[in-house]
């Protein structure tokens, strides 16, 4: 095509300008692709290392829960107990879009003893189920995992360092020796006088019925990824959790008392201090009275909130390919249709600050890329406009001998898009190569929480893939189109007379 021929030759003729515009397109594409790859890697990393390893995609909490930020707030009000767990479980089991689900508890506990009062964010669950559902996201560093009905706690390896800083003692799993290699630098300095403990006295924080209990440290653990961000999380076996928070199942609170205890429970003061049940000799009162009492009041109950099993929330993992927002909407409909007493939250909503920080960091990357785009657009627009004006004679003469405005437009667009394809395409390809290199270099976060969130894990893993490449191509096309609109208008406005007047 004629205009393509002229366009290509003009690009070669005006090499300096072509290189300037091309370089801007190249750099913009390169940085955009690396930014995209970082954002996509971050999103996928968060998905894999946080959502699929701990929070689940959807969180169900009691419909009496007023706040949405239910997962990562240590000082938060205790969560309400989910009602009708058996019914919820039955409904969830039938949903096609759900891959798996796990009931859990969450609450802040006060650590008693040590230097002042300290708090800890604890999660209660059947730990073996947790590992199964989330694909073994946690590794043991010292001690062992919680097995079966074993009571105890799993402390995070980084959380233990904070514990030492705040409380002045070093936690060692019960039944194990102090592992000096794992000591923090501060603990190493204090080694001769190091105080070790293998249990913590915990009290459920904020619950009316909470009690305290000395809980053995069963293991010191580490999340496979994002450990720094999740270091405050401590796992308790579910029975210990329920005990310190004063949650009682029906089985716990409805019990049959031996006859002698029942008699004590039903005895009056007169019975105790008069010639009643503790008087020597023959049993007080008639046997018939006592039997009557036993028959009518064989069970004693306390008015405590209870359910068949006390859980605070359910983590739901979606099947691969399910869209989060669509799944949340679907889950809300399922809850409504089945009259489940639950509130449906996406992991982002339930994770509060963690998710919002990740979103902010991702937005920063996106804003940076968008700003870069605008700068690129302005520079390219300016250079192309100057180029159009400098070629007034050429364009004006073409118009004089019969070229329509459309021809000038096509020629100008052909020049600019040729530059975009060659240089911008080069930037995209190099960006992909750089992303692959960066992914394989395994740049670590150094335990920095912000870096962990930017990386979406422990290492920087920019991912581009086909969709990322397409975003890059579309982005490049948008930059080129926006940058060329004004210069094309300038070129179209050039009249044959302008070419003549130049002389």
């Amino acid at each position, binding site marked *: 095509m*004629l205009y393509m*021929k*002229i366009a290509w*030759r*003009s690009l*070669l*003729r005006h090499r300096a300008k072509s290189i300037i515009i091309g370089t801007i397109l190249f750099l913009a594409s390169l940085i955009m692709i690396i930014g995209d790859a970082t954002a996509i890697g971050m999103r996928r990393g968060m998905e894999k290392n946080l959502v699929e390893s701990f929070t689940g995609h959807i969180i169900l909490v009691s419909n009496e829960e007023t706040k949405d930020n239910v997962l990562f707030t240590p000082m938060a009000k205790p969560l309400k107990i989910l009602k009708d767990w058996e019914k919820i479980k039955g409904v969830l089991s039938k949903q096609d879009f759900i891959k798996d689900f796990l009931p859990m508890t969450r609450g802040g506990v006060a650590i008693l003893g040590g230097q002042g009062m300290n708090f800890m964010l604890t999660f209660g669950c059947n730990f073996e189920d947790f590992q199964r559902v989330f694909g073994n996201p946690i590794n043991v560093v010292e001690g062992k995992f919680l097995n079966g009905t074993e009571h105890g706690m799993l402390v995070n390896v980084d959380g233990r360092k904070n514990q030492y800083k705040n409380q002045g003692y070093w936690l060692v799993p019960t039944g194990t020796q102090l592992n000096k290699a794992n000591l923090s630098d501060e603990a190493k300095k204090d080694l001769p006088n190091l105080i070790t403990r293998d249990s913590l006295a915990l009290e459920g924080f904020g619950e009316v019925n909470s009690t305290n209990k000395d809980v053995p440290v069963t293991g010191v653990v580490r999340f496979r990824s994002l450990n720094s961000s999740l270091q405050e999380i401590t796992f308790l076996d579910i029975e210990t959790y329920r005990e310190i928070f004063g949650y009682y199942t029906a089985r716990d609170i409805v019990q049959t008392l031996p006859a002698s205890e029942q008699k004590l429970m039903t005895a009056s003061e007169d019975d105790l201090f008069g010639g009643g049940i503790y008087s020597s000799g023959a049993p007080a009162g008639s046997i018939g009275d006592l039997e009557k009492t036993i028959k009518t009041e064989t069970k004693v109950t306390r008015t405590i909130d209870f359910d068949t099993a006390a859980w605070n929330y359910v983590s739901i993992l979606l099947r691969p390919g399910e869209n989060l927002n669509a799944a949340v909407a679907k889950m809300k409909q399922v809850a409504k249709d089945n009259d489940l007493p639950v509130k449906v939250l996406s992991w982002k909503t339930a994770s509060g600050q963690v998710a919002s920080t990740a979103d902010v960091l991702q937005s920063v990357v996106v804003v940076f890329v968008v700003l870069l785009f605008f700068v690129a657009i302005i520079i390219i627009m300016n250079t192309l406009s100057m180029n159009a004006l400098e070629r007034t*004679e*050429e364009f004006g*003469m*073409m*118009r*004089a*001998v*019969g*070229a*329509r*405005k459309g*021809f000038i437009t096509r020629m100008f667009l052909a020049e600019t898009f040729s530059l975009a394809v060659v240089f911008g395409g080069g930037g995209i390809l190099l960006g992909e190569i750089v992303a692959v290199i960066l992914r394989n270099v395994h740049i670590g976060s150094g335990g920095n929480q912000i870096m962990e969130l930017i990386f979406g894990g422990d290492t920087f893993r920019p991912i581009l893939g086909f969709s990322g490449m397409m975003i890059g191509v579309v982005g490049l096309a948008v930059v080129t189109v926006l940058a060329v609109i004004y210069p094309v208008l300038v070129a179209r406005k050039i*009249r*044959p*007379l302008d*070419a*003549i007047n130049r*002389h």
Partner: protein
Amino acid sequence: MNVIELKGVKKDYPLGATTVHGVRGVDLAIEEGDFISIIGPSGSGKTTLLNIIGCIDHATEGSVKIHGKEVTTHSDRELTDLRLHTIGFIFQTFNLIPVLSTRENVEFPLLLMKKEHLSRREIRSRAEKLIEEVGLKDQINQKPFELSGGQRQRVAIARALVTRPAIVLADEPTANLDSETGDKILRLMKELNEIEKTTFIFSTHDPDILKYAHGVVKIKDGLMAS
């Protein structure tokens, strides 16, 4: 038959608070096959008049008819098509497309003529024939910067004639040429006028080249002197 007809044509240029009158009411009729020279001193309005006839400038007032059709009311696209199919331009400053060779420059207007459905072979043959006629066969693949001033002007003539226009307008075609080359160019134009019956209108302020013209239009201060 009048191929060009101007009546009361005026062209004003606003210049700040004042108005410069480029052409101040010209009536002119040119017949098909004429070889007309417009003469006059610099700034007299020759180029302005040629630009108005060639549809690359608009008259402020008056009527301009080409082949009997009023062109002052034409749209930009209609004027562009008129320039492509009816009018050939030879500019004072050669004005070739710098990135195209001699042949490609001459072929350029033919490639724009979509309606004619000219074949690639036809386009090439017409361009090469004209290039040969203007004596540039050996420079057919050279770019404008590789050609002398006279050679470039001859390329411009070939380009102006390749579409077989009814009218060829030449604005001081010999102004930037030495006398020998200028003479050759005018002889070529005259030859084509006689053979092809193409109407030629050229402006000049060189009285030596008037000998080639059938008629002379004198213009002074934007008005026809004779």
